[in-house]
């Protein structure tokens, strides 16, 4: 145990990036199985709501949070002192999805179709870099902003394809018998294989309470390891902890996701500089960043258990 005062549990707040889902299973397993307590932590898990996780973690109102590489990159460029301390999933599981009947099987098919997004410049850039490989251009795609509308609603009307995480929305489509064509970013571009989601903390924690950070990562590692080995039990735990989630979806999603947490890496949570550098460079080249990222400061593997 890393805990110096074994009796007193240290209270920390862990803020999610969204509503609880299978990306967070390790966290809930650690909570339920007492891994946090073993590490001397008393963890309160909160949803960020409108507040957003990153600023909350940066200011220290929450000590840990869930974010994604792209957000950490943008945040750090804006001098927001958050650091990624573990990758939850080794490879990017997101991609562009369209119902089968839309007939979108490769990026070239985007041309003449309507993309529903949230209006960020990064979307056009990503679509463009995919399409360029097949000599098509984003110019031919109509991009509309679908705001908070969910994928299934959007494709009912106006929208042909959208950007989703397969592990949740894609699995939901399977459950609903909606057949999807899924184009993973990783299938088209090395540079777009970034980490999402990641565990974050702030620089102050790293400087002043490195033991706490280690304890957190250790507990999480144990939790995710459990989820990797026992997908079904882990799903059960998540459903018990967050009973308002749909049980069927959680199980299906967990089955799909469990092998992907560690994937081909030597250890759960490990991050490589290449991935960070590639994506930051790609963003910078596409005018998505105002300045270059100090890659070394953005992430660290030092808290991962030996």
């Amino acid at each position, binding site marked *: 145990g890393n805990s110096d005062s074994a009796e007193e549990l240290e209270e920390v707040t862990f803020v999610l990036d969204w509503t609880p*889902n299978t990306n967070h299973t390790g966290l809930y397993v650690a909570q339920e199985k007492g891994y946090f307590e073993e590490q001397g932590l008393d963890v*309160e898990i909160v949803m960020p709501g*409108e*507040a957003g996780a990153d600023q909350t973690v940066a200011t220290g*109102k929450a000590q840990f949070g869930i974010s994604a590489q792209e957000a950490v990159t943008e945040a750090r460029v804006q001098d927001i002192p958050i650091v990624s301390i573990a990758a939850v999933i080794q490879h990017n599981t997101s991609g562009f999805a369209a119902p089968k009947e839309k007939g979108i099987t490769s990026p070239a098919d985007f041309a003449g179709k309507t993309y529903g997004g949230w209006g960020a410049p990064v979307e056009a850039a990503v679509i463009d870099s995919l399409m360029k490989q097949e000599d098509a251009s984003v110019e031919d795609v109509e991009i509309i902003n679908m705001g908070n509308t969910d994928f299934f*609603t959007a494709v009912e009307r106006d929208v042909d394809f959208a950007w989703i995480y397969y592990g949740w929305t894609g699995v*939901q489509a399977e459950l609903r018998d909606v057949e999807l064509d899924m184009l993973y970013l990783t299938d088209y571009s090395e540079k777009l294989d970034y980490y999402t989601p990641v565990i974050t903390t702030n620089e102050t924690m790293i400087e002043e309470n490195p033991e706490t950070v280690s304890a957190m990562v250790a507990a999480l590692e144990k939790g995710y390891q459990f989820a990797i080995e026992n997908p079904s039990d882990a799903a059960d735990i998540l459903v018990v902890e967050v009973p308002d989630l749909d049980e069927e979806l959680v199980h299906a999603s967990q089955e799909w996701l469990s092998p992907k947490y560690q994937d081909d890496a030597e250890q759960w949570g490990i991050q490589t500089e290449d991935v960070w550098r590639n994506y930051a460079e790609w963003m910078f080249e596409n005018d998505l960043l105002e300045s270059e990222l100090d890659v070394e400061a953005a992430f660290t593997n030092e808290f991962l258990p030996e």
Partner: protein
Amino acid sequence: MFEKSYSAIIVIVSILTIWEITSRLLQIPTWILPAPTTIVQEAFTSWHNYNHHILSTITLTGSGFAIGVSVGLLIAILLHLVPRIREALYPLLILSQNIPIIVLAPLLVIWFGFGITPKLLIITLVCFFPIAVATIDGLKQTNPELIHYMKMAGATNRQIFTKLELPHAIPQLFSGLKISATYSVMGAVISEWLGANQGIGVYMTLASSSFRTDRVFVAIFFIMILCLIFFSLIITAERLILKWRPSEEGKR
């Protein structure tokens, strides 16, 4: 209104019926728009899952509304009694209604953490404004003849206020209360999106993010019930307090 509410009930029941029939006829999938019976069924079967959410929201709404009303009244009174303050603060009141949650939320969390304080603040922000505006206007519209009498009779400003202007503004205060009461439940739900562990708002986002449209509607159902209850409490209070009014004979 709620005594003779059978016609309201008829309308609501007909809407529900039409909804049910269309759902069944067009076979609208549950995840787009669940049929009322589906919703009711879900409401019953998972009652034990969410009843604590409802309780939590009721508490939040109640306390938030109470604070909001008090703040609204205090502001109205202050602004009415001290015209200098009115000129200075009125624009700020309006501005306060235009701070988007997206901005306020991080700031509130940074300042107050994830506790109940920021949530109460949001409900207060939502509730106080209609009450303040309606009450200020109500106070301003006091019958000048009666004000003249009070002044001539030597009433202090305080007496003019408590004995004349305030009772005179009560009908308008109730307009404000009705608007605020209507908003309060929604305000509580929104405030729960600010990072909460329970409440109808949390239940609803969870349901929504796991595509359980039927549960979303269960949540809405309870939001609406809550709101109607709040509203009818206000109306009952209005009727009790304004019982001196001329009866309806000779009115429309």
